[in-house]
């Protein structure tokens, strides 16, 4: 074997090693989340409130409902904005304005979540001097908007052009073609995209720390501080109590399974759409 060939083989081997190096932490994290988390999971985790400090047992019912409320607010705010922006980008994508929006959306997507938290704090918390579920929802919505926008644009582009041309040829306006033909065709994909985005922001902690804050008690009020799975996991993880650590793992397990299941569903739906678009 020549020296060049040897070098080539070594590099190929190193690339394989790189894949293994990335998969090791993934496997470790999943292993620990499942082994520590699943065993810690019980009915009480979903149905009971946190016990006072030092007492063993209890659950995260308040945090689970909190997370659900927070992501609902985020969804209600972000989905219309994201989907309509995405429609604009897909339909009038060639303009300078569209490029600017696309660029900004990508930049916004990269803005650190903690910074989004500060913004929501200044926007919603400071004027009324109170942490609230709404403030947390706004922060999460800002994180969701760019994701929903780009997903919508992307999926609308996957819809075969023939569908749109057919609608236009039949005398439909562009508006009609979009809302009665193209959008419905892409809808399953957009819906799963939204679900994935929701799962993503449900896993966010930093933007909630000083917007939704935290709440150890049951609360469904939109104008009061509210608990969330992530902040609760954070609080429990850095606490000195064994039983809280156990519950933190259980919370992590719930978070990870939620994200993973939705991601897998999204994969399938997107692939079906892609095949449909290629088949045309």
């Amino acid at each position: 074997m020549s020296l060049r060939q040897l070098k080539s083989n070594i590099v190929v081997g190193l690339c394989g090693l790189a894949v293994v190096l990335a998969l090791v932490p993934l496997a470790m994290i999943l292993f620990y989340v499942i082994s520590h988390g699943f065993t810690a999971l019980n009915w009480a985790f979903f149905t009971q409130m946190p016990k006072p400090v030092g007492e063993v047992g209890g659950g995260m019912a308040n945090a689970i409902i909190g997370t659900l409320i927070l992501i609902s607010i985020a969804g209600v705010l972000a989905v219309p904005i994201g989907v309509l922006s995405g429609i604009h980008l897909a339909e009038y994508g060639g303009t300078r304005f569209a490029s600017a929006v696309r660029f900004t959306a990508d930049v916004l997507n990269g803005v650190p979540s903690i910074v989004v938290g500060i913004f929501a704090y200044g926007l919603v918390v400071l004027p009324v001097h109170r942490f609230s579920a709404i403030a947390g929802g706004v922060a999460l919505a800002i994180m969701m908007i760019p994701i929903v926008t780009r997903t919508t644009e992307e999926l609308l582009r996957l819809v075969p052009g023939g569908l749109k041309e057919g609608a236009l040829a039949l005398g439909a306006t562009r508006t009609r073609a979009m809302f009665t033909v193209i959008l419905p065709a892409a809808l399953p994909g957009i819906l799963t995209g939204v679900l994935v985005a929701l799962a993503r922001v449900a896993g966010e902690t930093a933007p909630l720390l000083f917007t939704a804050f935290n709440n150890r008690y049951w609360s469904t009020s939109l104008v009061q501080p509210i608990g969330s799975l992530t902040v609760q996991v954070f609080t429990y993880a850095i606490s000195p109590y064994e039983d809280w650590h156990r519950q933190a793992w259980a919370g992590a397990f719930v978070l990870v399974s939620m994200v993973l299941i939705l991601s897998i569903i999204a994969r399938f739906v997107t692939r079906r759409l892609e095949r449909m678009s290629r088949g045309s």
Partner: protein
Amino acid sequence: MAQTEDRFYRYGTALFALLILTLVVGIGFELSRQSMLSIQKFGLGFWKGTTWNPVSGEFGALPFIWGTLYSSLLALLISTPIALGIAIFINEISPGPLRLPLTYLTELLAAIPSIVYGLWGIFVLIPIIRKLELMLPEWMKNTALFKGPPLGVGMGAAALILAVMVIPFSSAVAREILKGVPMNQREAAYALGATRWEAIRVALGYGKTGIIGAVMLGLGRALGETMAVTMVIGNNPQITASLLAPQYTMAAVIANEFTEAADELYLHALIEIGLVLFLITIIINGLSRLLIWSMARRTAEAPVRVVATETAVV
């Protein structure tokens, strides 16, 4: 009639798209407004001071800048070769049927919430690192990189965890870039008698711009990462090169101290740190996007794809 409808449609949806632009400008504006007190009082000295003592009213943010930059650069040092290796392996080497599963698996790393990385960091990674630190040979402990007591928490742990978190972002983009490099580039190399690695190097050279963009995208992520770093870095504002030393980052100090900031000046100082973090990340992200786009325009048929991989569906 139809024209009015379409005009309404066009400008109506544009209004929502405009909101995205407004948001980014709004964040910059709001953060500047909320940090005025600190900007006016300390000026540039804020970024040169090394003492952070809110009780006595001393606010020097240099240790945080140091911690953020140092941890991110260390993370990139680890993650870049691995991310590139993954991209090369999946695109150029792996047998066909393995390609998709490997792509999904490596991208799963991006789907795991940051708080879970942190939890894993505290209870699994840190004990391992502490053991490794205890095994360090004596002569290494005297070098600047490994000074200090073996606590487990510290710069090394933070850099490692950041590296793992950044890998999926960089590798996803690098993979798309490589995919966009025309086959004839490699074929030409092979025709000249190149080995596999030499052909890959030709492809890498062709995609250089985009790959730099991919690495910068990772950098943007690393700079702003909050929870996982906060949980493992030790949160001690000091400037040292030691990987064993507990340090602090910009994002971490905001996360830890924001709700404790009793007086207005303290709060404004923290928000000023947030403002600078915001400005740094938009510059890095903006540049990275421009590089990736310019690359995508040159190679692939559909430039949008590049972005979709890490935003849309992971």
